[in-house]
């Protein structure tokens, strides 16, 4: 499964729900697939996207909130999984696209290439609904459940790294304000 296929599967299952995207490839490919007002491109602060998503989910309990994370990023912030588990937001769906590498910096293998199993880490942290998928069909099935059933969910999806779409030009401040207006007109 490619990152853009995984993002398409997610986009096909949302209307106005917020998607909080990791910096780098997740942002580039989400922007290319569909630049919607409810997309928050975190742009920087590697590792923090799951924390940002938790903040959105706690603040907006009536909306499903999707986070698109990466393996290199969540490895920087594993404590976030435990914090999410402790707070237990039913509306949070944390998707980790695991390409087993730091793709932005030249494809160096991350710890998941050496055996770290992020789905087991998520379970161990106490996330109640965890899915590990390796195919697009598997991801679609997991997303259907995560949309229909209470979470918090963590879906670890193995993807094949084939590069990302064009690097978009946008202003982080403007993106934040557009996203925020989907909550506070």
């Amino acid at each position, binding site marked *: 499964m490619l990152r853009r296929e995984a993002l398409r599967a997610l986009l096909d299952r949302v209307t106005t729900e*917020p998607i909080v995207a990791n910096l780098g490839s997740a942002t580039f490919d989400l922007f290319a697939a569909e630049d919607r007002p409810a997309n928050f491109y975190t742009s920087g602060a590697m590792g923090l996207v799951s*924390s940002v998503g938790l903040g959105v989910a706690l603040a907006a309990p009536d909306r499903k909130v999707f986070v698109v994370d990466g393996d290199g990023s969540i490895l920087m912030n594993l404590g976030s999984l*435990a914090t999410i588990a402790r707070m237990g937001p039913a509306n949070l769906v944390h998707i980790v696209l695991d390409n087993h590498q730091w793709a932005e910096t030249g494809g160096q293998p991350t710890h998941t290439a050496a055996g770290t199993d992020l789905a087991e880490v998520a379970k161990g942290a106490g996330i109640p609904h965890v899915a590990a998928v390796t195919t697009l069909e598997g991801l679609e099935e997991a997303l259907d459940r995560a949309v229909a059933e209470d979470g918090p969910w963590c879906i670890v999806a193995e993807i094949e790294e084939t590069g990302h779409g064009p690097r978009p030009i946008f202003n982080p401040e403007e993106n934040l304000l557009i996203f925020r207006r989907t909550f506070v007109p």
Partner: protein
Amino acid sequence: MADAMAWYDSVIQSLRDHDIWLVPYVPDAAGWNVVSRLEQDPAFLTVPSAREEEAVGIAAGAYAAGKRSAVFMQSSGFGNTVNGLAQLAISHRIPVPLFIGMRGGLGEFNSVQVPAAQAIPRVLDALNIQHYAPDREEDVSKVVDGAIELCYAARYPVAVLFYSGLVGAKRATS
């Protein structure tokens, strides 16, 4: 003249007056005077965080979804927040009020607390984050009110530092 409110009650009143709702924190002895009371108060949701940078991220997410936060931490963990402040809060113009219990000053018993605490004002200056330190109980309301107002008006983090002169020095436990 009536006695000044306890410093932590003044902080709580100011948080309430400014519609602060979410309080991500990593516990410390000074801040716990505030956070432990907020945990019992249905007007607030406290979020125990594994690391200080997470707390900044959670606060940023809540602001993105239209809610106000205040982050509590100890000086020893402030360094963990720098990337989140620089690359998330400041670069997206997200206001995050920071409340930092300062170790490393008068009455400090633990030498390792000193260098991190001494660096904080200069690190905040380098990030263009304004910082204020009330040193008398009767000044706490004015400082905290002003800091939160400034933070949201400027859409930029602002820090309030609580030194031992106000909150008392943490004592060594045997």
